[in-house]
């Protein structure tokens, strides 16, 4: 049943279908659905025919103008005064909204692409009908077609709506944002903007944004390594401690730690930012103990803030690793450990040769995922420090800002730099893709080993 399908040549070529087919078949190359209707596949034929009609009406009323504007993204780029000859007065013209033009142009292109796909599907169906007629075989009726949707073509029925959702709410916005990286949609061109090719990328790598980009990128990578490594190492140690010999109420201990991770992050992290505040409980307690006179600038000093962020992340992240490690330890082959003990291995040797390799084996994919997740770890930075403390050398970024939080800030101001933000998003994509690729190869290597 799940055997790979052998690649078979199509029952007829498109050329043969066109040359040998009857008038309906030929007509189907121009008007979709004719051959289906002639062969009494009413539903299919109507769907093809109607989609072509609707598409053409839309295309001539809207599509052409939407696409023709795409090249210039609107003629008027800023507020201009033009002399209206008919009325004999000067009028102020608002700039064309390039954002809307871009959106509708993009949607038009996507619709055209979808119609082309549909056209190909209809051609294939026409060819199939031609071949069935030629060989004198039975032509499935609408009823049989619908029945096949519940069996051989079930995936089409099931995946249609989810795929439509993915296209509308993930693919389209992603493409939309990618295209913005190639415009000058920034603080100087907030409404009417134009295509500028790779200028935004150049600005990030060598231009005015480079002084912010490289330090932020550096800290993003340092953060991702530190956050992943600390939660992993200490999580493993905590897991070993809980699972060590003689400890009772393991479930209770596990749950107590997991509570921290289970609390919604916007609660726990916002509260943590209060906790470390200059007037927060930590500082006031230390002051009351007379250990310090001045509050420690946990979140205000750039270096200390970085440390605070990593430490707080350990508080949230260690329980997750612990949870996984305890699950792995419980599933370890006990006879292997017993055998090692009989041969005189001590606890450290058992850990080093049996327990830890197993933990590493199971956790490697998760670790790499965590690493990529940490590169994009918006919540911890945004809720804890908001990227701060402010860094006057950076363009709209603070000392603890990651690439993602900087991206967010660039888009959330009154005069946003969307092109820079979009280009940053593409850089983040490249970084994630590179590490995912490494991860993919690594897990495959493990599989073979």
């Amino acid at each position, binding site marked *: 049943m799940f055997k790979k399908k052998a690649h078979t040549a199509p029952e007829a070529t498109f050329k043969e279908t066109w040359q040998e087919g009857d008038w309906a078949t030929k007509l189907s190359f121009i008007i979709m659905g004719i051959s289906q209707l002639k062969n009494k596949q009413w539903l299919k034929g109507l769907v093809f025919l109607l989609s072509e009609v609707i598409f053409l009406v839309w295309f001539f009323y809207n599509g052409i103008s939407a696409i023709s504007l795409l090249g210039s993204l609107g003629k008027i780029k800023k507020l201009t005064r033009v002399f209206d000859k008919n009325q004999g007065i000067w009028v102020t013209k608002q700039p064309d909204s390039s954002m809307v033009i871009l959106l509708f142009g993009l949607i038009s292109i996507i619709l055209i692409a979808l119609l082309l796909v549909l056209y190909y599907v209809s051609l294939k169906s026409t060819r199939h009908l031609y071949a069935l007629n030629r060989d004198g075989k039975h032509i499935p009726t609408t009823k049989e077609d619908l029945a096949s949707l519940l069996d051989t073509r079930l995936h089409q029925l099931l995946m249609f709506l989810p795929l439509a959702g993915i296209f509308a709410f993930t693919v389209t916005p*992603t493409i939309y944002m990618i295209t913005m990286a190639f415009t000058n949609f920034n603080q100087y061109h907030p409404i009417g903007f134009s295509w500028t090719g790779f200028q935004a990328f150049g600005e990030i790598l060598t231009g005015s944004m480079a002084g912010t980009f490289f330090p932020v990128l550096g800290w993003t990578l340092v953060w991702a390594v530190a956050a992943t490594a600390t939660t992993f190492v200490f999580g493993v140690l905590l897991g070993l401690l809980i699972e060590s010999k003689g*400890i009772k109420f393991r479930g209770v201990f596990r749950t107590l730690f997991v509570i*921290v*991770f289970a609390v919604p992050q916007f609660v*726990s992290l916002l509260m943590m930012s209060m906790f470390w505040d200059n007037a927060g409980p930590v500082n006031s307690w230390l002051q009351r103990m007379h250990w310090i006179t001045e509050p420690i600038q946990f979140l205000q000093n750039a270096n200390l803030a970085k440390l605070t962020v990593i430490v707080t992340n350990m508080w949230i992240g260690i329980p997750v690793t612990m949870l996984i490690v305890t*699950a792995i330890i419980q599933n370890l082959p006990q006879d292997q450990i017993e055998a090692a003990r009989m041969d005189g291995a001590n606890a450290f040797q058992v850990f080093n040769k049996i327990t830890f390799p197993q933990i590493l084996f199971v956790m490697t994919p998760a670790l790499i995922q965590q690493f990529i997740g940490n590169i994009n770890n*918006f919540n911890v930075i945004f809720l804890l420090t908001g990227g701060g403390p402010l860094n006057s050398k950076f363009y709209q970024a603070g000392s603890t800002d990651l690439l993602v939080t900087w991206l967010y800030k660039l888009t959330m101001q009154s005069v946003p730099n969307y092109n820079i933000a979009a280009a940053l998003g593409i850089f983040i994509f490249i970084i994630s893709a590179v590490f995912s690729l490494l991860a993919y190869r690594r897990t495959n290597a493990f599989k073979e080993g």
Partner: protein
Amino acid sequence: MHSYKRQQRLSLSLRYLLLIALVIVWIFPIAWIIMTSFSVNLSGFVSTFIPKQWTLSNYAKIFNNKLYPFGSWVLNTFVIAVICAVVNTFTTTVMSYSLSRLRFKLRKPFLQFALVLGMFPGFMSMIALYYMLKAIGMTNLAGLTLVYIGGAGLGFYIMKGFLDTVPKSLDEAAELDGATKWQIFIHIILPMDRPMIIYTSLTAFMAPWTDFIFPSIILSTDSAKNKTVAYGLYNMMSNTKGLSSQYFTAFVAGCVIIAIPITILFIILQRYYVSGITAGADKG
């Protein structure tokens, strides 16, 4: 032998001590949150751990505040969460079954496509989505719900991983008996999939309660009433930073109300969470 036993006992008590110390460090901030929600406070942060004066007024305040209509937020979020739980569970189940059990030409390309799509930072599409919703006049709770539902088709990894482990001989046997794919899906796969369906619906239900980013982008221009809990509370905190003294404890009380059910749900679900993470190792 005697000294060995003593050494063992010493080691055990040291480990217990360490564990208890760690638990205290971990639980302390959480306990502080809960204590704060019960304390009388007029001066901003609460810096004492045990409240000087116990009160329930913070909880009363959060429910009776016209400026921050917590009750409507909870109701909004509940409606969205129920819709998400139903629709997203359906979507995830259907996608996982198709991608795990059915074989069609575009299966592999789609899996690769989904992988690549997932590498783009979510923020990119978020901001574009805001403009798309604005173009059709849906920067409101309905638009937010659409966004939550629309992206759900990509969240199939955990359930697909689970279905991949269900033996395929079950399907084959049913097919020999003349069952269609649809009948196999309904009568064989769905019953086996029940734990994953419960997990998916609960996580889908939990997500709107904790997400504050999407609502903060999409609902920012809507009225105070039309917000979700997480965004409303976050907004309350960041808007009133200067005045936080007045609302701080009420904010904390609101957080506690939301956090308790979410935390309990997560603790119940933790074993599914673990299997979701470790599943990657077997699958590669």
